[in-house]
């Protein structure tokens, strides 16, 4: 017998949000913030929190396409190297090739986009597993960056160039505005558009998605290219923030990004995840890092605590999922 579809009541909805992955994560974040605030009075201040927003923008921007990619069951390890490559191309085309700075910025971001496109092309057309392909380009793009830079750093940019990385708009770090807008736009894209639906379908069952007539290859190519683009933008912001260009920029950032995405509830096997979760993941990790350091913890102890929180959050999530699966 077909029972009539029951419309969820407001209480149901509230309960749903509270015990969702994002809800639990948010709760963990609140508790962490409160605990950290009792340890040091330098942590919970508007200035400090805004400053942290500045620091987390690069990770946050890259984490958006990474969420898309991990939802499809893939991974992109090369984002840190792409970020470094884009930064170097920016500095090199401005200082060595003599491009106008505006054009150099575009060239830098485009080089990142192209790098992502190459990843996507090999993954889709040649069928190289994403892990292998981006592990290879992790080395390759970094090597390119070092080759182009010849160990020279570019500095001495004009004043307007630092506006994005060091300036403020209405009292809030400029790049944080960019992050907020990007998060909102791509959160909605994932949740509401055909692209978002296709990514979830691919992650849950790629064969099924193909057999339903979805253009799987096109979507995959698109998100790996998007990942390169975002890494390129992050490279630009990074240069603008630290006033210099070096070839080792962004080294290891891929692990921070993946940690934030996974902490945010995106399954590494694909099929589930959200931009909201990823955002909370990014914020939580940044606040832990900062708060623990301010409390006087050494940096190695800080890493240990962050690792423990990650494991704890995943355990809680699994517990919730299994409870839900049984009910």
């Amino acid at each position: 017998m077909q029972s009539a579809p029951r419309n969820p009541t407001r209480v149901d909805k509230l309960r749903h949000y509270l015990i969702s992955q994002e809800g639990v994560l948010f709760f963990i974040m609140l508790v962490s913030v409160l605990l950290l605030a009792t340890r040091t009075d330098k942590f919970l201040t508007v200035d400090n929190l805004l400053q942290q927003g500045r620091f987390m923008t690069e990770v946050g921007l890259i984490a958006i396409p990474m969420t898309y990619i991990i939802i499809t069951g893939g991974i992109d390890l090369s984002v840190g190297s792409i970020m470094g490559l884009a930064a170097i191309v920016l500095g090199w085309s401005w200082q060595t090739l003599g491009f106008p700075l505006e054009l150099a910025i575009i060239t830098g971001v485009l080089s990142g986009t192209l790098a992502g496109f190459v990843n996507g092309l090999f993954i889709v057309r040649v069928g190289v597993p994403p892990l292998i392909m981006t592990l290879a380009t992790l080395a390759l793009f970094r090597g390119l960056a070092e080759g182009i830079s010849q160990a020279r750093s570019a500095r001495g940019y004009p004043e307007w160039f630092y506006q994005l990385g060091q300036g403020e708009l209405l009292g809030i770090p400029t790049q944080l505005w960019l992050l907020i807008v990007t998060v909102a736009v791509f959160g909605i894209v994932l949740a509401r558009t055909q692209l978002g639906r296709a990514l979830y379908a691919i992650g849950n069952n790629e064969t099924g998605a193909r057999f339903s007539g979805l253009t799987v290859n096109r979507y995959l190519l698109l998100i790996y290219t998007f990942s390169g683009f975002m890494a390129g933008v992050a490279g630009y912001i990074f240069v603008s923030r630290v006033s210099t260009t070096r070839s080792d920029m962004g080294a290891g950032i891929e692990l921070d990004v993946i940690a934030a995405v996974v902490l945010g509830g995106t399954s590494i096997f694909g099929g589930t995840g959200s931009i909201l979760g990823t955002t909370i993941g990014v914020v939580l990790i940044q606040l832990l890092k900062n708060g623990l350091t301010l409390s006087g913890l050494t940096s190695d102890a800080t890493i240990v605590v962050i690792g423990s929180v990650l494991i704890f959050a995943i355990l809680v999530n699994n517990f919730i999922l299994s409870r839900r699966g049984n009910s």
Partner: protein
Amino acid sequence: MSDMLLRMQGINKNFPGVQALKNAHFEVRRGEVHALIGENGAGKSTMIKIVSGVYQPDSGDIQIAGQAAHFGNPREAHLAGIATIYQELGLYPELSVAENIFMGHAPMKTRLGLRTIDWERMESGAEDLLAELNIHDLDVGAKVGALNVGNRQRVEIAKALSLDAQILIMDEPTAALTESDVEQLFSIVRLLRQRGVSIIYISHRLNEIFDLADRVTVLRDGETIGTQQVADTSEAELIRMMVGRKIETLFPKQMAQIGAVALELRNLHRPPLTRDISLSVRAGEIVGLAGLVGSGRSETAQVIFGVLPADSGEIIINGAPVTINKPSEAVAQGIGYVPEDRGRQGLIREMTIRENTSMAVLESVSRYTFINRAQEQSLASQSIEQLSIRATGTEQTTNKLSGGNQQKVVVSKWLASKPKVLIMDEPTRGIDVGAKAEIHRLMSRLAAEQGLAILMISSELPEILAMSDRILVMREGRLVGEFSRDEATQEAVAHAMMSEAARQAASAAP
């Protein structure tokens, strides 16, 4: 009888939703080649998996040489002298012929207090075993991965002999062999029979059975229909025993107005399983595509649907030639495909009924690429109502549904795309009788009332006969027969599916 080596009686085996064996019996004498035949799903595989210890029967007796036997796992069956020749599965490609033959029971020696493999004895032992099979041209030091299929099979047989196998099970051993390899296999089988080894031989190729076997047992719907001396039977009799399956309350087909040709294939080619296929399906027509498993029916469907794009040939939709290189292009041309493997190909099981129903028509429920939830919702509700899908609502994930209701969701996904041609691959496999009848009623209605052209692949002859306006038969990648609804009988279609002489038979059919 005293020379009865294996006796199985009253064997029952249930799997969720299906009784694979019902009170089945089977006996093998010492030193005979005993063929086991039946349609797809008749229970042959289950039977040999019970003999070889892979499955345990729910009830029934097994005796080996008069002693009650119980195999908890394949190893126990091995120790009792039962070996199975799988298609390449049992071998290690990176190891040598000798190592493969003696895997698990290599001759050992003790040197300096350590037990090590006696390589010399192993190699000479392997040579002796092969020589016993009249095989003298195989290098025992060669890597198995470098051998051709026929030689790999010989290595498997030698391996079985090294274990002193009394009963050798061969499951479709000639499926991948060339003709000369088949000849050599047959002579080895005859040699083994002379030595008193019993062979259980499974094959769809009836002519092989008449060449090789002493007796033949026919299974149908999990029951033993009978055992015959091969010398006393005929192809026609065996086919008669194999078919005539029980017809489960099939829905009476609604006769439809047959319209213009909706789908036409001209010399569609993608070897090995789609060879030079030409056929047409008209609006309102249900064309049944019959054939054995592996005859190329699903592959041909996937060529049409763009999963396996064609090497050559033409696909014509409503009179216009079209190019289809991927599924999205097939969908754009108005082709829907209800695939064979519901869980892997048909559905995204973790997603909801709503999301699955709209999967092939995301464009049409979207505006500026934003999916309109309300429109999607109403599409799903309509599907639930029209196909009477039993679910708690549109937000239920499809992995919580029964097989029949899952299938209805797949069908509703394609109906939403308003196709001109619907390919249905085993549309009622693994679903219960009630849901089956509903799917049949739905197919019939779609053809008769909406003029949909349906190409239906099925391994169940009663289904093919009951639902089809016209029946096409495939064997080894080719179309080998065509029957109108009136002239088709289970025997005739089965004959075309199995017999080498089918092409002539089909053209000579009344």
